[in-house]
């Protein structure tokens, strides 16, 4: 059966969902700023910002996560609590790029040699309801990174905005478990036709021209290229791009201790921060922005592809949109492909 959900029933549907699940969706913090957050009330859900600042990775891999709490006495320590998932989770309104990004991180966190329980427990208990992108932005280039505005892979339920209703495709076992939900109606042929039209229209909108084919091999030959001397210059070394990136997954673990009681916390870290690679001796193997920018791009387009066969970029455009100095990863790829630095200093738009 083909489903749809009328928008007038949307809040009721969310209310039902909240009774059985922990729900995570984009919430607007202030005009123009949205993040994925745990939802308390249905009206908090706001799907208007196509690319929320913080991506859905926050749901599995929060910026700051208490791993456990501990207490120390004079001679021994004891762990007093451990983080656990209590209820099944639903992510609603993640875009196809964010969903692909989850699978990219998953390859690192849930591997053959090691399983990161903090990530895995959450991932296992989560149903993903994706929202298709009818209106991609000009900074979207998912079609260049192997995705697309209607990419369904990784989604349990795929949702298409038809104006007055959402067309719903229940794609996996987890998704099909929702088929008995109240408010789900049968979609008619007109709905299905409209959904197809929207998909066709959107597919022409995202940029396919970013030359990622063979990028890994090209970068192999470019480790000491003068390209890096120039490309990093405008980067001021903040963590915007890496923190907002849905595939960046570096973290730092610290103990926060007061009076022999404390917690072990893991926090996002960024390879663009000088202290990221600073060693105890005081030596820093990535002493300048040149090495740090190289690391950021090499990890996405060389090291990760070597390990997992795909670039670690989903073309969401966050790093372009929110960079304080307009470092544009698309242009970085173009220049790397052309192996040139000429023209990097700006051009007429």
């Amino acid at each position, binding site marked *: 059966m083909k489903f749809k959900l009328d928008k007038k029933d949307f809040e009721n549907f969310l209310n039902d969902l909240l009774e059985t699940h922990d729900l995570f969706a984009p919430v607007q913090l202030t005009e123009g700023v949205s993040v994925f957050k745990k939802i308390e009330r249905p009206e908090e859900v706001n799907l208007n910002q196509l690319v929320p600042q913080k991506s859905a990775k926050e749901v599995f891999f929060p910026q700051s996560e208490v791993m456990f709490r501990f207490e120390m006495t004079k001679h021994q320590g004891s762990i007093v609590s451990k983080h656990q998932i209590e209820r099944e989770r639903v992510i609603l309104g993640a875009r196809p790029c964010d969903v692909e990004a989850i699978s990219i991180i998953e390859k690192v966190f849930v591997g053959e040699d090691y399983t990161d329980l903090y990530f895995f427990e959450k991932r296992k208990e989560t149903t993903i309801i994706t929202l298709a992108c009818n209106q991609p932005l000009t900074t979207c280039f998912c079609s260049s990174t192997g995705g697309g505005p209607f990419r369904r892979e990784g989604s349990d339920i795929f949702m298409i905005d038809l104006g007055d209703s959402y067309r719903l495709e229940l794609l996996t076992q987890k998704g099909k478990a929702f088929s008995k939900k109240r408010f789900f109606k049968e979609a008619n042929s007109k709905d299905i036709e409209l959904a197809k039209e929207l998909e066709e229209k959107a597919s022409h909108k995202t940029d396919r021209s970013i030359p990622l084919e063979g990028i890994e091999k090209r970068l192999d030959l470019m480790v000491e290229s003068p390209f890096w001397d120039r490309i990093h210059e405008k980067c*001021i*070394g903040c*963590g915007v791009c890496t923190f907002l990136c849905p595939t960046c997954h570096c973290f730092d673990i*610290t103990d*926060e201790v007061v009076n022999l009681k404390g917690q072990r916390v893991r*926090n996002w870290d960024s390879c663009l921060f000088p202290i990221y690679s600073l060693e105890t001796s005081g030596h820093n193997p990535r002493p300048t922005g040149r090495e740090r920018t190289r690391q950021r791009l090499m990890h996405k387009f060389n090291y990760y592809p070597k390990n997992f066969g795909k670039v670690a970029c989903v073309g969401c455009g966050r790093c372009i949109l929110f960079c304080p100095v*307009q470092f544009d990863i698309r242009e970085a790829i173009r220049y790397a492909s052309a192996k040139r630095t000429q023209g990097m*200093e*700006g051009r*007429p738009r």
Partner: protein
Amino acid sequence: MIQQKLREKAKELLSNKTVDLIIGYGNWTLPLRTTPVFIRTPQGTESLVWNSFCENNLVTYLHKFSRFKVGIVVKGCDARSVLALSLEKRFSNQKPLLIGIPCQRIVDRKKLKKAVKGEILKAVEQGELLFVKGEDFEVTLKRDDFLYSVCQTCNHRTPLQADFLIGDPVEESPLLDTHPDVRDFEKKSPEERWTFFEKEMSRCIRCYACREACPMCYCAECFVDSSRPKWIEKSLSSSDLAFYHIVRAYHQTGRCSACGACERACPMDIRLTHLTQKLNQEVKDLYGFETGIQPEIPPPLATFDPKDEQGFIK
């Protein structure tokens, strides 16, 4: 006109090797924006631009290029940062050459984005007007309705101490007397102020874009990065966020040139300049001091005089 003169001056400085490098603004991929550019050849100067979207304070790059002879494009506020840094002896080897442009005040891209529905694909400036285009809209807006708050209150638009001034000095009359966020903040009770502050800071992701964008933040080791002693934790607790932002603002006391780079850099749209502007006001009221205006007067918090008028210091 100004853009053409700027290119000519930059070309001259590179051609006769007065400088190794020009730091200026260029066009890049997004509308409503420019990007910092680093130009080393006379031909490269053709990509220099000047318009109301030149929002970055390029002075923050001078720390990185201290080994070179640099020519840098500065607005009034940016020139003030250079002067403030000179007083802190940051340019003991060689001072950068300042190519000053009297500023027409800068357009707040976030304000502009909120005023239209849909993605802005193109924005062109013509005199006092902005022509803004999207896929299914086209509007003409008044430039002055979309200026950064710090620019509305600016009364130092003409760069001081510039080695070259491109264009004529402008009249120094602020459009607003008080920064709107400061005015609102002052009206609040202490409890309301704290609530407002905490709400703004709660969006912080500790990316430190505000710190990196600021030319005055150049400590070899920022207090947030120090592990011995550890002044602050790395997570997002409200006390750590408050601590970071209060200390960041306080470290700017008597040093902030009101360029607003911190607020512009923030991806989470956190209002930051109400703090720094309030501090600037206090410093002015207490000591009659404004950052980067008088080259011979050291910043009040970096000097001590036994004959200090202020009672609280004795």
